[in-house]
């Protein structure tokens, strides 16, 4: 530890305290304590893990191929087709199961990429400061001026609506928010005593970033990722509703919900309701988990 050899008690205390308290608990212990204090958050995490598992193992779980016209069209719920069949005679259950793939892929990919890049830019922007910070902040301002759905609409119309293009559009949407939150966080850490102390004793900037700033940003990173995941999934579905989403050929919750709700809600309610429930439950779980994680990991973010 750099700070231990300086003989500056205040810096030492601050640094040691903030750095050393965390590793005392093992990850397992942390998880257990989270489950104990936030049981609903834990249940939500379970739902999300289950959904990810469903997405990965869709071919093993789904009773039918989601494209095959295995039933008669518009079959109501029954033993042969648990969630009924759609207008072409495809199995709704299988399509809902496969639909988790797009939602989860688009959500996770865009959040991981977007928040990671946003975090890196946020740290750099805050740490380097000066003209670079100013430029980045102006771009962030400009990007934040576009409501998410309008930005997504424009970008997917421009890029085309393949799954990866939707991910790209979502990354652009999530970036500015992440940059702003992380930057603010880093700025406040930068002013804390132990960082100043490390600077004073001549620690290299990258070392300060790595040892002092990054660990403190991790909590925000996790919370931000969780909170934005729900947003990403909803935007993906909304794009399909607006007619610029993922290919109609690929089963998606948003696509099934849109078709079902707009065309068949009266005669075949199951076409809209099950994908709708799937989205709502998963996003609800994500939001609940985000709430719980925020309370546990980063109370400063509360109310944002």
């Amino acid at each position, binding site marked *: 530890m750099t700070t231990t050899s300086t003989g500056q008690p205040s810096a030492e205390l601050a640094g040691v305290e903030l750095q050393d308290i965390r590793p005392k608990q093992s990850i397992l212990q942390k998880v257990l304590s989270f489950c104990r204090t936030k*049981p609903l958050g834990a249940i939500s995490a379970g739902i999300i893990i289950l959904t990810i598992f469903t997405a990965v193992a869709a071919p093993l779980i789904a009773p039918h191929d989601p494209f*095959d016209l295995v039933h*008669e069209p518009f079959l109501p719920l029954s033993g042969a087709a648990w969630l009924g069949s759609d207008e072409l005679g495809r199995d709704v259950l299988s399509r809902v199961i496969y639909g988790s793939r797009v939602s989860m892929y688009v959500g996770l990919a865009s959040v991981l990429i977007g928040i990671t890049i946003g975090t890196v830019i946020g740290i750099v922007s805050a740490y380097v400061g000066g003209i670079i910070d100013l430029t980045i902040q102006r771009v962030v301002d400009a990007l934040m001026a576009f409501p998410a759905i309008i930005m997504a609409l424009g970008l997917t119309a421009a890029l085309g609506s393949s799954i990866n293009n939707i991910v790209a559009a979502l990354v652009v949407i999530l970036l500015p928010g992440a940059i702003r939150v992380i930057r603010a966080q880093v700025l406040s850490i930068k002013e804390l005593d132990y960082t100043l102390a490390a600077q004073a004793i001549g620690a290299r900037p990258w070392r300060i970033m790595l040892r002092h700033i990054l660990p403190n940003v991790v909590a925000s990173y996790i919370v931000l990722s969780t909170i934005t995941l729900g947003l990403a999934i909803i935007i993906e579905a909304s794009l399909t509703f607006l007619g610029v989403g993922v290919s*109609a050929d690929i089963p998606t919750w948003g696509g099934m919900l849109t078709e079902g709700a707009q065309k*068949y809600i009266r005669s075949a309610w199951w076409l809209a309701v099950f994908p709708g429930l799937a989205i709502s439950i998963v996003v609800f779980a994500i939001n609940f988990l985000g709430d719980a994680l925020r309370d546990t990991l980063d109370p400063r973010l509360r109310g944002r």
Partner: protein
Amino acid sequence: MSTRLKPALIASLAIVASLLFAVACGGAETPDPVAPASTTGDSGSAATEATAAPAQPAAQATEAPPTATPPPDATIRPTNTPVVQIKSRTEPTPLPSSGPRPGGLVRMSAYADTKDWDPLGSSSLSSVISYSQLYNQILQFNTVDTTQVEGDLAESWEVNEDGTSYTFHLRDGVKWNDGETLDADDVVYSMQRYGNPCNGRGRSGLWRTYTIPIEVVNIVDKTDCTATNADQVIRKVDDLTVEFNLAFASGAFINFLAIDYAKVLPKHILEQGVDLNLAESILEHNSGSGPFILEEYQSGNHYKVNKNPNYFKEGMPYFDRIEHFIITVPATFIAQVEAGQVDASNAAANNLTATENYDLETTTNSEYVAHDVFGGATRGLMLNIKREPFSDHRVRQAINLAVDRQKHNARALHGAGRGHCPLVGMANDLEECASWPGMRPKDTPGGLEDIAKAKDLMAEAGFPNGFEVQYTVRQVGTYAAECSVIKQDLEEYLGITGPIETLPSAAGYAKYGTARPADARGDWEIACQADGMTVLDPDAIYGGIFLKGGTRNYTDWEAPEIAAWFEEQKVELDPEKRREINKVAERWLHDFSDNHWVSLTLGRNFWVMHRDIKGFHAPQTVQYGFKQEHLWWDR
């Protein structure tokens, strides 16, 4: 711990439960949606269903739509007249003995907002519906026998001996709403405007195909659009007489003059430089002559019209007022009809699927009738002949044989398709086409033969196990569903498989267009597309799909045989002889010794109307019949 958990758990359960409850309530009153008709060729999944309808005999079921109310026309009828005669599933609203009664307000739904208020260059259906009520054409289709052309502004007309010159005699005493006289000057001015090549042809200028072309000084970069020969094409003989000169004799010409797009507009207002494409200008100058007068237009929401008290047709129109509401979401249209806030759709277009249209009749106890309008669009599968392996005609022929047209119609179109003839019944009759290879049901001996033949062709072409392709569809209408169904056939029978790419409408057309340049191969391979029918005439289908430069002929496929037959039938004035020529051509097209378009079916549309609205007879296509002057309330 438990105190924290309990309320939250209960609360979330309550939310989920109430959601389910809400959903259940929404669906509880829904009648058993559709008794699925068993489709041939499908494994016996229906038999395992407790709710399934009793299985129907396979032969009957081949064309049955997946609905409880299969239209009786599903059995194909022979047609004997040159213009396709279509027997409607629903009878025209009967005329009671009392005769039309004037009065009343009718609330109609429009399927989309108006784009144009000026027909110039207009090919937008949602627009012609709105401006058609305000103006008149030279000719119109009869509102009872909708295949017949009759005068609108014209009282009579005659054709010269060789059939190349039409003279129209206009009604005397017709006035514009502002009091000016409507005479030959207005007609000539309007038509020369639609005929000017600087202006887009749209659907208002479709008759250009037949007349001597109007030439302008500089068309290349549109610097001078003054017409040099306009008076040789369309000429004012006297105040009430107008003459059109054709490039060749044609019986089809007057059909294109009779559609609602070919409106006569006021010369005296247009000459002041007023832009009648803006609803505000129409309101300001009161520019119409038609049965109704525009009162209000709110873009994206509604337009309202009132009866023209001085309309030149005695006693017409019958309605006092029509309010049109733009309703783009099908679920909303249904809800509004059920709530009794909408009396009719204002065209055979309401964004609903066939099943939803039939259901609407059921749920309203036939208070609302979904009238069939057959001439929607001819639907097909486009093959990019510029790309491997579709450059090999054997592959294309194999696809033509392997596509299950019955399944395509039943599943993707909910049974709304009618027959499979490439010329949609205007040449060979539909029964005849149904017996051709590739058109036969796949579970009949003939159908099995077709599949075997298709497999042989694929093997011959070097693809015994099929290949990978990309399907392209536009994100509108039923295209995605159509390609999904076709993809399954081709995968099952020929091993041809691949993803379906969906594009926004304009982006899709742009992609198809990449195959246009002579040296380009195009970025697409196989696509589901339709060609909209304005007038039911073979010329339109040849010109749109099977001739070089046709709108749907993106790869500029051409066959000298077809071009020759087209020219021959085009100038044939005897309907029977014309039909014979087209029969030969149609068979040649279907045999696919060379072709780029797999004809699937003629799609049907629905015009929803309250049963008390009388005087309605379904037009032959979705593109005309919007003056609404002949409809009336029987209440």
